């Protein structure tokens, strides 16, 4: 699970122009990672036994994400502590996570589909390759009743198409947002979380020659000249817009 800038946060570009200024944005759990946790908890509940271990890579501030996950029902956590996690490439991220969780020998690994900040969209897939287990991406339903030596999952394809696959365990699933309703942390859960184990791991991030480097971030170049209407007054904007619909767009 990853900590990312809040969805609605106003972003300021950092002084080196290579990332945002993280100091002034509120942070949240990456959306699809929240769904990944929910699905892991539901699989464990359906099975009636087992353990859900949360793994987060990021700076100490990402403990918020971990504590929230423990409060929602995860059993323990591994925190791969990397201060400048936005400076390492997706392969390095996946490698550090693989090294941290390999000995857990998980039956199932759940990951979010992609992060809402860098959006590399490959941590889960690369992690599966490094762990030597099969993967399914963009999973929108898990047939929990099928859980045994294998598991049947529904993948989302494009344009409203879907496909079921059956996977041998262990395997890794990347979960699509909206797969289920995410539970809230109960007061009891929050209290219980305080006693749960969080293991800090400091990885040795190996150099990776083939990595991608962000050279510069900037506001997207506008492809269109936008006429802004109403000057901040929504009602005045609405009046102006209808005039445009009449005279320029000609749909009324």
């Amino acid at each position, binding site marked *: 699970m990853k900590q990312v*800038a809040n969805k*609605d946060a*106003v*972003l300021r*570009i950092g002084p080196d122009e290579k990332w*945002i200024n993280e100091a002034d944005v509120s942070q949240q759990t990456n959306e699809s990672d929240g769904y990944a946790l929910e699905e892991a908890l539901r699989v464990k509940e359906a099975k009636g036994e087992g353990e859900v271990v949360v793994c987060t890579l990021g700076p100490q501030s990402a403990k918020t994400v971990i504590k929230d996950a423990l409060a929602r029902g995860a059993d323990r956590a591994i925190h791969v502590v990397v201060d400048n996690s936005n400076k390492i490439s*997706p*392969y390095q991220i996946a490698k550090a996570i693989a090294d941290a969780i390999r000995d857990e020998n998980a039956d199932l690994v759940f990951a979010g589909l992609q992060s809402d*900040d*860098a*959006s590399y*969209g*490959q941590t889960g897939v*690369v992690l599966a*390759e490094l762990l030597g287990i*099969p*993967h*399914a*991406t*963009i999973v929108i339903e898990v047939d929990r009743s099928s859980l045994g030596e294998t598991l049947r999952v529904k993948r*989302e*394809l*494009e344009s*409203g*198409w*879907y*496909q079921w*696959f*059956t996977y*041998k365990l262990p*395997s890794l699933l990347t979960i699509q*947002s*909206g797969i289920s309703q995410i539970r809230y942390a109960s007061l009891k859960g929050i209290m219980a979380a305080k006693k749960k184990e969080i293991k800090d791991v400091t990885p040795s991030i190996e150099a*990776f*020659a*083939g*990595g*991608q*480097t962000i*050279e*510069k*971030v*900037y506001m*997207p*170049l*506008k*492809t269109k000249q*936008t006429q*802004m209407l*109403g000057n901040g007054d929504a*009602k005045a*904007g*609405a009046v102006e*817009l*209808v005039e445009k*619909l*009449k005279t320029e*767009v000609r*749909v*009324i």
Partner: protein
Amino acid sequence: MILVFVEHKNCVLNKTSLEAITAAQSIGRDLGLKVTAVIPCDKDCALAQEIAGYDLEKVIIAKNEKLGTYTPDGYADAWEQAIKALNPQYVVMSHTYQVRDFAPKVAARIGREVVGDCIRYTAVGGRLVLTRRIFLGKLDADVTIGGDAPYFVTFQSGAFRGDNAVKGTAAVETMDVNVGEIRMIPEDPFQEAKASVDLTKSEIIVAVGRGIKSQENIALAQQLADVLGADLAASRPICDSDWLPIDRQIGSSGQTVAPKVYIALGISGAIQHIVGMKNAGTIIAVNKDSEAPIFDIADYGIVGDLFEAVPVMVEEIKKAKG
């Protein structure tokens, strides 16, 4: 050499692959590299002749009996061998759901990673600088790739135009590839619910996003749609919450539309939504957040509360229509 991936289902082309061919041809011209298309298939793929009608050096069918239906394991094995045999500088693909599933695996296996979902590139000193959209479309990032070839690049749907792919003639070859154990069993793809609404034929669309706040408020958007003779649509979170049925969803996982007018109410404009509607004739956005990416592609924008703007729009349109 540049390898470009041709995606298909039962030898029927996924047309997004033509965009990848356009991209690969463009990179090829800029870097002085030839382009070869690769089609994984279990037979002498009927699609190969169609692809051979483009300006490519070769069309290679990577053939194995296990490649009849897509699986990430099968495709990863096929691509790994194609890359090792052909030694390309670049591997270019469209950023489809299928490519997202297998391309990072192939790259990782040969010690590389994918620069994914790029929207454009520039060639600088014989290398590519790729531009990706990050932070849900709020920022762009220029990205370079280190190390030695091959470099894996995927382009966002719509970044290049498929009809700009240069025609020509290419030789078709078959490369027998080995495919190891497939650790997943696929069933047949299916469509969930037959779309009762075909939004691709709509002239005017009124679409709602998270800014609509509750299911009850959708009635307001419906009023606007009614006075305009428009169809109602939505971004993904609205359909995930079951406030509108999934056949109203616009975007990469829903329908792709190009109406005359698209009115986006409370839609921030995440990439996944924008790819489904950016080709609309006129885009109108109403959003509280002046920095919402939807304004980057809008022709007309109102920064403000949609609950103030929409009732006024409804009244003014009624007046205008007499």
